[in-house]
């Protein structure tokens, strides 16, 4: 058995969230746990593994079939660049690198307290990427421009 296997036990089936920059693993875990459907999923947390790409990285292994789209979009807002792999029979059958999204629709609140979307009921928020390298997004309504990680993600109700 290689050292890698000893450090990160393989899972038979599930989702591996990989290439999380070191230090952000617990933040990603926190995001997953803000969704009720994820709170009971068996999860292995790995921190500070060496990575040829990142130097050091964190990793999560989840014994679940899939990540719902809204969680994927939440991860794209909070931590783009990470990869999500689907594992079956101990093999990776699908790999997706979460890139900076072109648009963020309905999953984030506008940072501008005076934006109408923070006052009018049931308006679906929309943000469009206006500067991909700097991850800057413009609100379709108030036209304010914000950094992607400044956008407040709308998390589901726990009631």
């Amino acid at each position, binding site marked *: 058995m290689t050292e890698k296997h000893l450090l990160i036990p393989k899972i038979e089936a599930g989702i591996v969230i990989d290439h999380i920059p070191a230090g952000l693993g617990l933040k990603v875990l926190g995001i997953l746990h803000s969704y009720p459907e994820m709170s009971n999923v068996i999860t292995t947390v790995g921190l500070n593994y060496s990575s040829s790409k990142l130097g050091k990285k964190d990793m999560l292994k989840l014994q679940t079939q899939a990540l719902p789209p809204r969680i994927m979009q939440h991860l794209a807002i909070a931590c783009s660049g990470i990869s999500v792999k689907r594992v079956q029979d101990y093999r990776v059958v699908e790999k997706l690198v979460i890139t900076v999204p072109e648009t963020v629709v309905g999953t984030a609140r506008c940072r501008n307290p005076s934006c109408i979307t923070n006052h*009018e009921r049931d308006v679906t928020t929309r943000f469009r990427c206006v500067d991909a390298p700097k991850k800057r997004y413009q*609100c379709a309504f108030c036209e304010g421009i914000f950094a992607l990680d400044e956008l407040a993600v709308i998390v589901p109700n726990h009631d």
Partner: protein
Amino acid sequence: MKRDLISIRDVGRKDLERYLTLAARVEALPLADKAHLLGGRVLGVLFFEPSTRTRLSFETAMVRLGGSVVGFAEATTASVVKGESLRDTARTVERYADILVIRHPREGAARVVAEATRVPIINAGDGTNQHPSQTLLDLYSFKTFFGKLDGLKIALAGDLKYSRTVHSLVQALALFDNVEFTLVSPPALKLPAHLRELGAASRSRFVETETLVEAVRSCDVIYMTRVQKERFPDLLEYEKVKDAYRIDAALLDGAPPLLKIMHPLPRVNEIQPDVDDTPHAGYFDQVGNGVIMRQVILLDLLGVTP
């Protein structure tokens, strides 16, 4: 598909030039020839915030084209005080009118209304965001004063951080070639950086000065805005700078003869009354152009050719 006028960001140079051409045509038409262009049509006015010029000029524009006006001039007389949503108010008034004009204190309000309704929507100011009809009438004023927009030398003075008029104006002028912006503002009220980045493709230039004296000598137009006391966290700071952004007739001594002073109005004391009688006063002509440009907007969005 219906068309709206929500933001200058949605308008390209070709559209701006089309509006300017239409404005010249509408201005040249005898009153009697335009008095029936919008006969039988109704403009719905939804003003959730007080305004004199913008509301009256839209209403005048509609009435002089033969149309009529319904609506409200402040939120206290609207159902919003009973808790009605903005979209419900708009969806109600659109059943009474062919086109709506809205002013609202929240940024993005006009866009929300535009997406909820089937009639054309005109944004007459949404918070600190946009005021596109003001920008169009300003461009038309520059055109009538100087005959051109390319190469215009314009000083923007006062509150450049929060003034929606200034923001829309910079966005529009940055679409023209070689426009030179001179920015005159207190450090706390500087033009936002993302607006300064806009003019790169059209070779716009931005220069900063601390005082108006220099701008008076070197620019075609000085566009004044009000420096509002409430924008300053420290009132001492306000007291220090308030007089630096004030124009009087003495300051204009020796100014180039064609220099124009403009202002979206209302002014408080940033342009002294003794400027009114100089050939440099452009702000009341600017107000007059407001009616012409708003007629153009109404005609255009309702698909009527003047």
